[in-house]
Each structure stands twice: as structure tokens, then as C-alpha cells.
């Protein structure tokens, strides 16, 4: 049975384009133009993944409200925000409301489909036991590349997909400086330098929440970031 993806997007052309590409990938796609129709459909049947635009026509923050309602229906359903907005405020707000990730509409379709596939893999394998070959270990850091989950000192660090990819890009070659462009490439996102900076800040905070003495991510000013062994 193919996976079912719900797209909530008010712009018809984008909606149709995304529907086409996801269908071609073999997904079952249901597209909605506004919050009300989407929500009534979700009450009847939950999709396997939801791709939600924040601004829905006149409903400026309709996507946020929809995300909240959807999260109330299912705690594990992967939710991906897709928006023309790229302010830190929107990203933080979206993630706080329980979305799994946030991408701007600058994202290319291959990146988007890769992200969707990764989200599915993560939600499916979350419960399965880890295979040793899929784990990248760097001291206290353990990256499960299959489940896309991170552990620090055997404690789970709850990263979004973007953040996971960024940590992976840094930790794969400890001591090497990753500039912002390559971090973006690895994380499959298109954002500006300042947003990369705030992503890194959020990652640090999440690690610090698990271990107050965490200081492995160095900022190399003028160049990028580095994972300290």
C-alpha cells in the first residue's frame, strides 16, 4: 500500500506541481487548498505525512493552526512546514507547534522528496532496533543514519531532520571546517547565512539541554563550523 501524503497549499500551481512530483515518486497524494477542507478530510482519515503551507490565502497563520489540530489528532504523524516565509521567528514557531521540519519554498523538488523520504524512514524505523553498521559514533555522539536519530552519552537528542543532517555533516569529518554553503547542501536546505547560524545555535541548545558541558561545535568566524573531537 502506497503512503499517503496530504498537501495543504493555497497556490494552485505549486499545489499541482508538488502533487505531480510526489505522485511520480509513487506516493498517494491528497491536495487541499484551505484549512477547513483539509481538517475535515483529516478527521475522516489521517495521512501518513502532511506538507503544510503556513499562509493559506487570507488565513495568514492558517498552517500553524492546522499543525496544532493535526498534532492533537496524532502525536507521531510527520509534519513538514513549507513556506515562503523564512524568518527565524516562523521557523521557531512552526517547530514549537510540533512540526518535524521546516523548509522554505526555495527548496528544490529533489531536496523536498529526499526530505520526505527521510521523514518516512525516521518515523517507520523509530521503534526498530539499531543495526550497528548504520551508526556513526564520535565519542559520546552516536548518529543512527537509518533512523536519523542522535544520541549523546546514550541520551536521545531530539533534532529535526535539517538539524540531524547538519550534525552529520559536521561530525563526519571532525576537525574540518564546514562552511555555510556545504552545510546547506548537506542539510538539503536553501537559506541564508544568518539562518544557518540560528540553526547551529538551536542544535547547540538541544545538546546543552542533554549535557550542560557540551561544547563540541566550534564557530570558525569568517569560515563556518567545526566538530571538535
Amino acid at each position, binding site marked *: 500500500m502506497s503512503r499517503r501524503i496530504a498537501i495543504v497549499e493555497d*497556490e494552485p*500551481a*505549486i499545489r499541482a*506541481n*508538488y502533487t*505531480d*512530483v510526489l505522485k*511520480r515518486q509513487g506516493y498517494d497524494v491528497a491536495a487541499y487548498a484551505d484549512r477547513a477542507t483539509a481538517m475535515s478530510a483529516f478527521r475522516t482519515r489521517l495521512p501518513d505525512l502532511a506538507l503544510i503551507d503556513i499562509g493559506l490565502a487570507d488565513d495568514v497563520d492558517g498552517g500553524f493552526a492546522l499543525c496544532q489540530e493535526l498534532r492533537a489528532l496524532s502525536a507521531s504523524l510527520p509534519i513538514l512546514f513549507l513556506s*515562503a*516565509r*523564512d*524568518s*527565524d*521567528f516562523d521557523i521557531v514557531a512552526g517547530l514549537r507547534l510540533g512540526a518535524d521540519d521546516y523548509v*522554505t*519554498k*526555495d527548496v*528544490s*523538488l*529533489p531536496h523536498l522528496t529526499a526530505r520526505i523520504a527521510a521523514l518516512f524512514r525516521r518515523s517507520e524505523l523509530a521503534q526498530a532496533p539499531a543495526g550497528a553498521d548504520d551508526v556513526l559514533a564520535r565519542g559520546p555522539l552516536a548518529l543512527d543514519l537509518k533512523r536519523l536519530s542522535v544520541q549523546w552519552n546514550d541520551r536521545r537528542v531530539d533534532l529535526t531532520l535539517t538539524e540531524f543532517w547538519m550534525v552529520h555533516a559536521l561530525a563526519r569529518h571532525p576537525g574540518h571546517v564546514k562552511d555555510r554553503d556545504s552545510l546547506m547542501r548537506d542539510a538539503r536546505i*536553501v*537559506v*541564508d*547565512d*544568518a*539562518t544557518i*547560524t*540560528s540553526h547551529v545555535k538551536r542544535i547547540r541548545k538541544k545538546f546543552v539541554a542533554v549535557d550542560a558541558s557540551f561544547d563540541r561545535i566550534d*564557530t*570558525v*568566524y*569568517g*569560515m563556518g563550523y567545526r566538530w571538535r573531537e
Partner: protein
Amino acid sequence: MSIRIKLLLVLSVFLAIPFLGWGYVRELDRVLQNAQEQKIAGTAQAVATALHDRARLFDRTPVPLESLEKEHRGSGDAPQAMPHPGAVAEVEQILNGMSRTTSRIWIVDRNLDVLARTGSLHAPTAAPEPEPQGLERIGRWIEEGLLHPLYALALAQPTEDFSEEGAAATLAGMREVDGALAGRLTTTRRTTPDGRAVIVAAAQPIWIGDDVRGAVVVEETANAELALRNRAFERLFTIVLATLLIGSVALTLFASRLTARIRRLRDEAEAAIDAQGRVRGALAGSSARDEIGDLSRSFSAVVTRLAQYAGYRENMASRLSHELRTPLAVVRSSLDNLRQAAVPHEARVYIDRAQGGLARLAEILTRMTEATRLEHSLHDAERERIELGALVTACVDGYRLAYAARVFVLDVPAAPLVIAGAPDLIAQMLDKLVANAHEFAPAGAPVAIRLAQDDVHAHVEVENEGPLLPEGMRERLFDSMVSVRAQSGGETPHLGLGLYIVRLVAEFHGGGARAENRTDGKGVVVTITLPLAVDR
């Protein structure tokens, strides 16, 4: 020249009033002189009328009146002929009526022999005026202490201290007497021999039948008239002076208030807009219902509109980019779909080109929103203690990698420069400055980065050879969407936001940014001033 001084100059027009007053007083003087002449002429006529046709009075040489008796006796040259006693009594009676006035009356015959004389030119001593009380005293003090000496300079003052010497002798040959003896009523004015008083005289012929047998001469000083004229002038002058004084004080106060209001308005207007032409704060319009109030209100409106415009300009980039993102996403997703569809090989070339253009568009959009995003991130940026020297050195190491062809000259003092700030933001600011310097500097020329400090500030200077700043743009360079680059479409878009970001970061740290031409005129120096951290 300040408005106050100008108003006072205008007020000086009123100084013409004393001159007009002077003219008026002279007119008055003439009228008074006429009146006095007529009065004494009248007296002379009256006396003469009483003596007309009394031929026996002139038959012999009469003896002078009592008052003259002693004088004549003492001088030893008593006249030989004695007058008729009845005639003397008669003349005495007639002249008695006049003796209380300040006039002197002579009666002479054709030979200029004095038949009778009465009165004195000197006025009787006036009773002292009552001592003034209270305010009146101050008024009097001002009048006598300050004004009178002043008036004394301008006006001849009447005095009783003059000499009548020779008056008796000089009656001979006097015009009025000659005139009277010739049969005409004649009035003259003359000064006393010592020059201290003016004497007005009138002579009336005494007719016996058709013959002139003698003359009545009435003399008076002009002192009374002079005093009257002086008082009129003084009164006028005092009033004008008081009016001028009160007017000047009132005008000065009024002008001070006006200028104070205008100055305040100017200060407010200057404070509302800083040196870079940015609106610092709204201007509270005055509620006064006059022109200055109007001016203040329109200033306030202008500043408000300017602020709105600046806000519009600063937000435009972000709104524009937001609006453009959606159609861009349509194009991008369509192209991505197209690429995955089965398209002929030739078509792929065009898809690639379209995607190349799209990437550039996206880059522009990202840059356009960079400043706005930075503004947002400033709200929750955290400050920490940064050693600026290490940070700048690290950044420059990065630039040496990023711009491999460029030589970077770094000058960092040995002593640590600690500021309280956000290192990411400082690095971002430096990125912009160096990117700018790199673009403007000709190939092969170095870009210099210097760090220095004074008592309270750290200075970061980024210097490059290259084109000078256009005049008049220096202050605006750090504004949003202001660029001095030629509009040639290069690889990377120039939106005039780089230096705006620099300014935002500098201001966030409580510092400032300025751009200047190098003193040798061959390049540009941008200096960032950041306050040093206070040692804990």
C-alpha cells in the same frame, strides 16, 4: 542677527517721535511768544489809554514814583523839576493795579525822561512744593535725578538769576520806544546784557490830541513762557521715553518668547533627524494656534511622513521578497517537474539556463530579506564578552581562504580588546565590510583591517584602495537600499543592504559606522566604533 535685535532696530523708528515733538514744541513756543507779546501789548495799551489826553502830566518833568525816589536821591542827580503832585498820584493809581504782575512798566515822555516806573522783571519766589509721597517720590526722583539733567542739555532753562543793569539807561534808542514815539504799538524781544534771560517788551504811544507825548513801555522776561514750553516738552519727552521703554521691554519679551519657540522647534527638528538623515523619533507638534504652531505641526507631519517612508523602504525589501517567493516557487517546481519528465535533450539546455537564472533570483531574494532577518534576530541576540582581536584574526584567516587572490593586511594590537557583543553578528558585519572592500579594491591591491582603541571605544577599520565615495553619499551609505555602485549587472546582486547590515550590527552594540575617503585620496576607509566592555 537675531530676531530680537531686528525688532529692536525696527523699534528705533519711534525715536523719530522726539524730533517730531521738538518741532511741535517750537510751534507751541511761537504761539506762546505771540500770546505773551499780545498780553504785554494789551497791558501797555491799557496803561496808555488811561494816560491819553492828560496833557498836564507831560507839562513838566515829573518826579519818579516813590520806588525811584531813593535811587535818584542817592545818585545825587535829582531832576530839577518836580512833578505836579496830583499828576503823580494819578499815575501812581493807574500803575498800582499792575504792580502785582511780573512786568515792569515805564512811562516816558518824548525826551525819554522816565515819568514813572513800577514792578520788577524778577518773579517773586515761589512757595516750595509739597514733599511727594510713595510712588510719586520715585517718579519725582526719576524726573529730577535722571531726566532734568538730560533736558537741561537740550533746552534753555529759565533763570531768575539775571542782571537788569543798564536797563534804565538803555531805554534810550530802544526800538520799541522809538516805534512808540513814532506813534506805533511796537513789540520787541531782546536778551539781557548778561545773556541769561530774554526780555519781551511792548511800547504804546500816549496820545495828547494828535501828538505823541510819551510812551508806556511794558517789559517782561520770557521765563514764564519758557518754563511753560519746557514743561510741555518734558512732559512729551517723558511720555515718549516711557512708551519706548515699555515698548522695548514688551517687544523684547515677545521676541524672546518667539525666538525661544523657534529655537525649540529647531532643536526638536534637528533632534528628530540624525546626521544620517534617519528619523530618530516623532516630533510632538505644538498646539499653539499661530504660525509657529503651524510650522511645528507641519514639521511634525513631515517627520512622520519621513519616518513612514524610511519604514516603507526598510520593509519594502522584505515584503517584495516575500511576494516574489511564491511565483518563484511555481517556476522552480515546474522546472523540477519538467526535468523529471521525458524531455528531448536539446530542451534540457534551456531548463538548465532557466534554473541558473532562478538561482540568481533566489539569491537576490535571500539578500533582500537578510537585513530584515537580522533585525529580527537582533531582538533576541545574546551578548557575551568577546576578545575582538582574536575574533577579527579568526575572521581574516577565513577571508584569506575565501578570497585567495587578495592580500589582507591585519593590524591587531597586542593588548586584548574586550567588548560585550554577539560574535556572530560582529563576524557578519566584518564579512560585509570585507566583501565590500574586496569588490572595490583593484586586483593586487591589499585590503587592510586594523584594530585600535581609545579610552572607551574599539575601532575596527577596513581600508581599501579604489574609487572614492561620491560627495553627499557619505552619510546615506549606511541606509537601507542605498548603493554607490554603478548599475552594472554583475554576478552577485547589489541591493545596498550590506552597509545597512553593518550599521544595524554596529548600532546594536551601541556603536556606529562611518565611511571616509582616505587622506591620500586613493581609497576608502570604513570605521566601526564599538564601546569597550566595562570591566567587572
